[in-house]
């Protein structure tokens, strides 16, 4: 399936670059990778003028690793181009997998974001209310910027995706393993997430300290109490996404004595990570009284931001409903 010296490409859209750092974190191993594959381009190591990629033969790239979510017209165009030129398109990292943290922007609309950034900040002096423009004439010089879309989308909401490598960022180990799999001659089923398909608790160092009957009468925020360095964080009352999150990171955050925030996304059997952790935690309450139930659940200050930290665009609802239908871009035309 994959030729002896496969051509590999990297590109990034709305992301922070952490995923590529993860690749660099292969450290010494990076030299082996370089030996095994032919890196035809890195995000910045090659001219990405649309026509240059267009000029490439379809499928001439063996595998493109694309990280970052899709927020601007430019990113969308690039995603389409790379898809057409690549045999395999791999979504690398939470942002392209599920939308990632920038996906939280789907709780707001485009205009309010632009106003917040360019008009409202206390340090910004912008009495004229200037906003960046897609097309602008600056004394006769016409300048263009990519369109800032209303909605952040995961890569597979824009183009067909073959595989996913989860994580914010994926650990070097996860990335290396995934690369191995792709270089191997039996490719996994299309659409697979290249990481263990079990929840994080499976590999959590604190697994044994979790009681058999975890029931909640209150959720704790880390600044409210000291965090025991040995005990299961959920058992301590901290909201840990571990039970609803795919394993593979070796519980790095928990080893750092903080709860899992869910960056590896749900298992293959779950369609909506947030709904699942919600269902799990809520059911474990003790109270049968509506007021008391609301009080306990009230100790989760930000359900959406917590349950969907990395997966809002990839969730079933994808974004907050905009006032005034139709929903762009969700509504059919």
């Amino acid at each position, binding site marked *: 399936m994959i030729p002896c010296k496969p051509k590999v490409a990297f590109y990034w859209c709305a992301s922070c670059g952490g995923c590529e750092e993860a690749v660099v974190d292969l450290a010494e191993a990076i030299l082996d990778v370089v030996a095994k594959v032919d890196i035809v381009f890195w995000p910045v190591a090659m001219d990405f003028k649309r026509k240059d990629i267009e000029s490439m033969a379809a499928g001439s790239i063996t595998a493109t690793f694309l990280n970052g979510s899709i927020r601007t017209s430019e990113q969308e165009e690039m995603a389409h181009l790379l898809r057409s030129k690549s045999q395999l398109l791999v979504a690398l990292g939470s942002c392209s997998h599920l939308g990632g943290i920038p996906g939280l922007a789907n709780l707001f609309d485009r205009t309010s974001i632009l106003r917040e950034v360019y008009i409202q900040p206390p340090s910004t002096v912008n009495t004229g209310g200037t906003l960046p423009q897609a097309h602008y004439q600056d004394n006769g010089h016409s300048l263009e910027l990519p369109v800032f879309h209303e909605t952040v989308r995961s890569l597979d909401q824009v183009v067909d995706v073959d595989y996913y490598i989860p994580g914010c960022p994926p650990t070097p180990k996860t990335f290396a393993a995934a690369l191995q799999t792709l270089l191997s001659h039996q490719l996994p089923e299309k659409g697979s997430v290249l990481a263990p398909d079990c*929840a994080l608790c*499976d590999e959590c160092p604190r*697994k044994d300290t979790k009681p058999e009957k975890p029931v909640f009468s209150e959720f704790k925020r880390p600044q409210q109490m000291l965090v025991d360095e040995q005990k299961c964080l959920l058992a301590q009352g901290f909201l840990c996404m571990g039970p609803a999150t795919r394993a593979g990171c070796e519980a790095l955050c928990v080893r750092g004595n903080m709860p899992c925030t869910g960056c590896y996304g*749900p*298992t293959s*059997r*779950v369609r909506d990570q947030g709904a699942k952790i919600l269902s*799990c935690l809520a059911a474990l309450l003790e109270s049968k009284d509506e007021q008391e139930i609301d009080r306990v659940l009230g100790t989760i200050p930000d359900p959406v931001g917590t349950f969907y930290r990395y997966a809002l665009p990839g969730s079933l609802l994808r974004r907050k409903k905009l006032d005034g239908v139709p929903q762009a871009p969700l509504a059919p035309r």
Partner: protein
Amino acid sequence: MPEIPSVSGPEDVRIGVYVCHCGTNIAGTVDVKALASYAACLPHVAVSREYKYMCSDPGQALIEVDIAEHDLNRIVVASCSPLLHEATFRRVLARAGLNPFLLQMVNIREHVSWVHSDRKTATEKAKDLVRAAVRRVSLHKPLEKRRVPINPSVLVVGGGIAGIHAALKLADAGKQVYLVEREPTIGGHMAMFDKTFPTLDCAACILTPKMTAVGSHPNIKLYTYSEVVKVDGYVGNYKVRIKHKPRYVNEDLCIGCQECITACVYKEGKTPDEFNLGLSKRKPIYLAFPQAVPQKVVIDRDTCIEFKSGKCKKTCIEACGERLAIDFKQKETFEEIEIGAIILATGFKTFAPERNPSCGYGQYPNVYTSLEVERLINASGPTGGEVILRDGKRPTSVGIIHCIGSRDANSNRWCSKVCCMYSLKLAHLIKEHTGAEVFNFYIDMRTPGKGYEEFYDRLLDEGVHFVRGRVADVSDWAVHPSEEGKLVIRAEDTLAGFVRRIPVDMVVLSVGLEPQTDAQDVRRLFNISCSSEGWFLERHPKLAPVSTFTEGIYIAGACQGPKDIPDSVAQAGAAAAEALALIDAQSVELEPYTAAILEQDCSGCKSCIPLCPYQAITFVDEKKKAYINEVLCKGCGTCVAGCPSGSIQQNFFEDDQIFEEIEGVLAYA
């Protein structure tokens, strides 16, 4: 995540869709032809037909033949509620050699044709539901029912005529029966009656033999003065906890000689006698009534001096002597029994006429309830069978008012069914005992039943007066000398067309029947339903009148609705037969809707363990994963919904099957 394909399921899925007209029940509102032809165009549908009655033999045959001819491997039947005919059509699949669970039913009768009138919308809704079923069924998997052995003993709750009859039938069939009665004696309401309509044979004469039979039957364990407090398990294997209230008399030692009662420091009874509805008094130590079963006295701790002050001479203990049956230290005790089936025969209570002030009960001493009059007339009653009023007079005129607490928007809307007949009976008996003039005030005279109408005719001949019309009120307000010192019944005579004032010495209120006060608690205890009136709900009003929605639990007698003695006995027999049929099968099939852990997917997060109300989920330390005990699992699916990594699956209610159904109903246009 990648989009899950809308119609998944293997390529070789071949679905047959069958739309039932149910005569005009469905076809009258739903365009069944359009529906069938719509279904024919859905993915994977190989055959789609509509037929007059799918549940009929030819209807079933139709499916069987198609399965063979078109080698169908999935079936959708759009007809009535699955709760009615799912079993029927599953059998069809089984006969045709298909796994019965490859069926999906669509409820286009109860949920469509019967609740909507607009043909277009009803048909569109039916299409949505069929489309959803077609998508769902493609994901169905073959399932095997579980067989579990059945404990061949039966619990009967309630020692009235229904409970007694059911217990005897089962015991005679050689089954171990536990009969639990909360009162100190069995007998129920029937034991209070004097005669029974229409034959006028004496209630005691026909009941007492059955009562003693129960008391002495080798296969019946009788627990009086006891209550069921906990019910666990499932059909064929129930575990029940019974509380024995202390009667402060050792049942094994008491021989019912009643010397203790005579010896009691109270020379006269001071406490209103429950059995006589307070028309007489009893002592703190007493026997409910002469024919009580078991013949064991009981001490009422609220009135017994020993209990109140601890300073009683305890003459009862002296009287009991070396038998040492009396035991003031007795405590309540508990007992666990295991049975395969349960029959509930917890009976009814009579309407409390205080709730209807205009009839003067509690205000005028000479206003009685029908049940009180039963006691007055009864030879073993407070007056030894003499009809003497509270003021000592003998009535020369008596008014019997029907429908007190029945057919009345202000109390109970239902007809209590037995009142007309017992009112006629009482009219006859009162006339017989006193020769008084008797007036019956009725709304309608309801006498369906063998020999009932004839009995009514007989009463007419006996010169009992009948006034057709609602009674406005009962008062002692005399407007005419002839009314002085009498109770005046004001009623509209709808036949004569004017309001009558009829002065009488005695008023009898024919009170209606109501569910027991604690009917709701009892039904929760046994996990069955009640109708909105509070009567226990049968599985089907026609086809399963003594079954409930909980397998292995049956209902008999007036706890299911107002009934006279013959009906109660008949129903008790039916319930006994059902129970017998169940336990004689020795094993029972359970729905396979159980949940199972996908072992290598489970992360061992333990979230599911506290969710199971049946402790079916345990944590296996060696594997560090959860495990579900299939036998304990009842298939509610709560753990499935709660598993944060989707690692629990429920048979027949798998996530993907439900997603298909949801997306199916919404995939319109």
